């Protein structure tokens, strides 16, 4: 018997399968593309396949993320709740979570029971999200996975004056044409996005311990830049990108229990 959480995010769709104990049996990450229905079906069937179980064993499914309403699931839950559940299960000592995804960044404060006390999300702007880095990696013709490696080679990060994705694009081009090393530009971009996320998160404070989640937390360069700004060492899940889907699976387990306990 198992439960599934699907996080249909702006950039990637994640599916996580958990057992009765809330332990992860399998997970997958697929690109969201332009059709959440298609990507969520794909994520779901691949995750089931990996778990070795069949769809008849699934007791409850919860979807979350931008495409949550388009996913074939029993109910939906917001990312803020799902991320909090996921992190609380993994690291019960965490009180502050900073999640940076494809289109959103958020900071969440939770209590000792994993309950959300407060949260803050980015304004209507792509700066400070994964999209910013995606755009920049395209201009620099460097795969997004290389950004981390190059970051740590930088000795003199450039100072980006604009965090607007559109303006930063031309700024990157002029830095490169003026002869800045690519690694310095990349480190500068990480600084810029970290600064943005840091100022947004400051409103709810940084109560210890802090954890970073979301796809962008896989980028060690960004993690390095943000940790330095905050002045704390974050707890990092093994796969930061699936925490939200994991929380959705835990929510599915809880919702199933509520359903069956009712006569």
């Amino acid at each position, binding site marked *: 018997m198992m439960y599934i959480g699907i996080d249909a995010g702006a950039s990637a769709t994640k599916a996580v399968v958990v057992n009765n104990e809330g332990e992860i049996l399998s997970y997958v990450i697929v690109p969201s593309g332009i059709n959440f229905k298609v990507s969520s079906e794909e994520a779901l069937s691949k995750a089931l396949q990996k778990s070795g179980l069949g769809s008849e064993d699934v007791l409850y499914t919860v979807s979350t993320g931008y495409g949550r309403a388009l996913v074939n699931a029993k109910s939906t839950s917001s990312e803020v*709740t799902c991320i909090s559940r996921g992190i609380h299960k993994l690291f019960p000592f965490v009180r502050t979570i900073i999640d940076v995804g494809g289109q959103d960044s958020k900071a969440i404060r939770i209590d000792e029971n994993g309950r959300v006390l*407060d949260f803050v999300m980015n304004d209507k702007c792509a700066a400070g999200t994964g999209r910013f880095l995606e755009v920049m990696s395209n201009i620099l013709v460097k795969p997004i996975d290389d950004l981390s490696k190059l970051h740590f080679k930088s000795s003199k990060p450039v100072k980006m004056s604009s965090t607007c994705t559109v303006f930063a694009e031309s700024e990157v081009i002029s830095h490169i044409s003026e002869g800045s090393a690519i690694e310095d530009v990349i480190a500068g971009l990480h600084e810029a996005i970290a600064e943005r996320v840091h100022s947004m998160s400051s409103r709810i404070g940084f109560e210890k311990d802090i954890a970073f989640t979301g796809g962008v937390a896989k980028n060690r360069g960004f993690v390095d830049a943000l940790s330095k700004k905050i002045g704390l060492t974050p707890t990092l899940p093994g796969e930061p990108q699936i925490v939200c889907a994991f929380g959705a699976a835990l929510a599915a387990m809880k919702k199933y229990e509520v359903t069956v306990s009712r006569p």
Partner: protein
Amino acid sequence: MSSQRERSRVLQSTRKIGELILEYFSKAWDAKAQGKPVAWITVFTPVELLRALDIYPIAPEHFGAMCSARGLALDYFQEAEKKGYSQNLCSYSRCGLGYVLSGMSGLMPPPDILVTFRNSCDVYVKWWQSLRMHLGTPLFVGEAPYVLTSDDLDNYVLDYVVKQLEQLVNMAEEKFGLKLDMDKLVEIVKLSDKASELWLETLKLRRFKPCPLGGRDSASDIFPLVVMQGTDEAVKFHEELLNEVKEKANKREGIIENEKFRLLFDGIWLWYAFDLIKYFEDRGAIFVYEPYSEAWAYRLDASKPLESIARKVLAMGLNLDIDLRIERFLESIKEYQIDGAVLFSNRSCKSWSAPQLVTADTLSKEFNVPYLLFEADMADPRQYAEAQIKNRIDAFLEVLGER
């Protein structure tokens, strides 16, 4: 089925607002045809005084809101932007300027006089000066100093505004040969006060659980208090509305069936996105208090008409010191049993948005009331990210549900 349900969430009285608005504009054209002067005014400019002078007041801000609600604003925005007005300017001003630049063939008759008071908004004076530049119409600019303490509503600050009201009367007399009829002014002030009294009484009924008047109603029902103050129609509308809401309250009938969360909304409404109110209501959340809807009511004393009107010009919500505003905020939390606050950071209205964090922090620290702050524009749908906002609303309501 769902449209039936949605309809039932709007009060009978509220449904009459659309007609009232069209009638209001049609009467403006009638006035124009009869040779009466039409004034374009900014809101919280003394409508009562203009009415007593037999000048017909129209508020382009209201026009902007209405165009946005009816999906007509975009053409006007683009008209203004084509001429070089920046998208970063207030959307009401872009709509009004676009209307002028596109030939004024719609609902608003061209003005004979432009009247504004600098009492809340930084854009007013420059916007009205731009209108004068395009139209060549005479302009009156009044100055209402910022109200730092409630004493300012009685001291030399008040005298200063009264003086300017007298200057406005002089200007109307000189330009149009009109005479101010004091008896008429007293009658108009009485009617204006009556409509305000009725609206305040109506709003108080939202303290009932379940709440008998929702966000969709309050956003529309203010119209008679924006430009129709001092008319019988405004009083009649608010009498009927009060009766309807009273009846609902007595029957313990709410706007939504299963009222789970009672919310405060801070800001001007997003006129093109009324469905957002429905989105909240579908999830058991209802708006029970908005500083914006309350702001339109102001009690006047007919025995001192000019002082009263001057006080109203001064006491316009955004012209009040932030401490005075917060005080009212905090009272409302208790009065209306509010579970959470939704703050709309409006790209067009910096005077409204700038102090929001101060109020929000006070709310959460003093009352432990959680809040949601989101960004959009009041009239320009191009600044609105629906999925992103709904995403935040879902998370916010889940947080409220867990408390």
